[in-house]
């Protein structure tokens, strides 16, 4: 029940976010700040995770390859497509839902509780727009960049694991990497990245913006931002797969 009414509130809230900025410079500055926070702040964790995932993918595939007729060079192809189609974008987004989703919910929720939002409203600021639009723009721009990096690092991790641990040769891996490449998969990756970025940010900002009560409720809102964000990402992942890959 709560979910349905929240969803209605969310949809009703969206036009507020996309209304005309009072002052472009202020929005621009805030967007740049957010880009920096999201991008630089999450770069290392995204790289670490995708590197490991690439490596694990390679090792698992080499395990499954044993004793089969599948040519060894398929390793590069499998790692690449796993990364592009699913791993880089979904894992990165889930991690970011945890990292930036909770931060955003806490930041905006804190402003709500400390009456900062009321104070801005009294000045005549459209707080829905000022507090959310820059975050949305920043994440829709920066998260695809992070996903791209995750993809490259993941394939790199796969390469290292394949060559050093799993006993493939470098040329086998690169040959696979160059085989069966479908550019459309990259399009799917970016469609997912942008969609997930929107989900992470809007869900987190919604949870923060409408928080009531005190620090306990703020903690709960922050948790909800992460949980709902992650679940919605997976649902969207499924829907995009159904639409774009069938």
């Amino acid at each position: 029940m709560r979910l349905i009414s929240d969803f209605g509130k969310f949809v009703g809230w969206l036009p507020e976010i996309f209304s005309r900025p009072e002052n472009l410079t202020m929005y621009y500055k805030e967007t740049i700040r957010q880009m920096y926070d999201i991008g630089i702040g999450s770069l290392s964790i995204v790289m670490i995770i995708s590197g490991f995932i690439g490596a694990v993918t390679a090792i698992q595939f080499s395990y499954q390859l044993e004793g089969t007729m599948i040519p060894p060079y398929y390793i590069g192809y499998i790692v690449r497509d796993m990364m592009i189609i699913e791993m880089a974008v979904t894992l990165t987004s889930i991690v970011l839902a945890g990292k930036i989703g909770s931060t955003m919910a806490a930041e905006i929720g804190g402003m709500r509780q400390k009456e900062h939002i009321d104070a801005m409203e009294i000045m005549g600021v459209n707080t829905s727009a000022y507090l959310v639009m820059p975050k949305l723009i920043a994440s829709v721009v920066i998260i695809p960049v992070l996903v791209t990096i995750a993809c490259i690092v993941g394939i790199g991790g796969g390469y290292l694991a394949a060559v050093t641990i799993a006993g493939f040769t470098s040329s086998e891996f690169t040959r696979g990497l160059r085989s069966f490449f479908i550019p459309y998969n990259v399009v799917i990756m970016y469609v997912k990245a942008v969609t997930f970025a929107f989900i992470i940010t809007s869900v987190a900002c919604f949870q923060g913006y409408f928080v009531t009560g005190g620090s306990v409720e703020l903690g709960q809102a922050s948790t909800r931002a992460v949980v709902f964000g992650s679940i919605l990402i997976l649902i969207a992942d499924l829907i995009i797969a159904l639409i774009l890959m069938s």
Partner: protein
Amino acid sequence: MIRAENIVKSFGTQEVLKDISFTFEKSKTNLIIGKSGAGKTVLLKILVGLLQPTKGSVWFDDINLNKIDKNQLRELRMKIGMLFQGNALFDSMTVEENIRFPMDMFTTKTAKEKQQQVDYCLERVSLQGSNKKYPSEISGGMQKRVGIARAIVLNPKYLFCDEPNSGLDPKTAITIDELISTITKDNEMTTIINTHDMNSVMEIGEKICLLHQGKLAWEGTKDEVLESEDELLLDFIFASPFLQRLRSKALSQ
């Protein structure tokens, strides 16, 4: 001019404000007084539209606050300055950035003009030189004064102050009262102050409304306060035994 018409506000079953009506004139310092929990903050938030009244309406000159759309509301609010009871300073910004924020958002002033205006406002609240400090690095009373500086930075037409001098020493409190009173005259503002400070009442109260248990119990000027025989008002104003003794002494003379 700000007018309230039959304002009722309930939270669940608790009726906090019961049928309140008043008119506050331009260029006057209007006070809302009342015990803690009387509903002053709720009333002020209804006046600026942060809370919706359960019944009744609020008028800013000929604009009905409860009938206008969001854009008109924002336009009106650019002419409003407000000091919150808890200051509501942006704690990740310095004092200067706080005061500059409304100018950054709504004006096309140059950096130099903004700087001058910030310094001027800080001077008016006697906080010269605190520009670069963060709200967490200054005292509660100083935060309050920064809040006032931020509220007046755009020369508002309407000024709302929720307990501007709670937490200030008597001397500073009087300075702040005088400041508010002066700019009210200078800028022809309509000013509404929530307070339970008796000094303010007697110094700057051109119109005083006493809230008691959600009702408007008394209204009048500071001079009328002295002559009033109203039980509730006297009970509120001469709350301390010391003041009661002073009053009976004065009356017996």
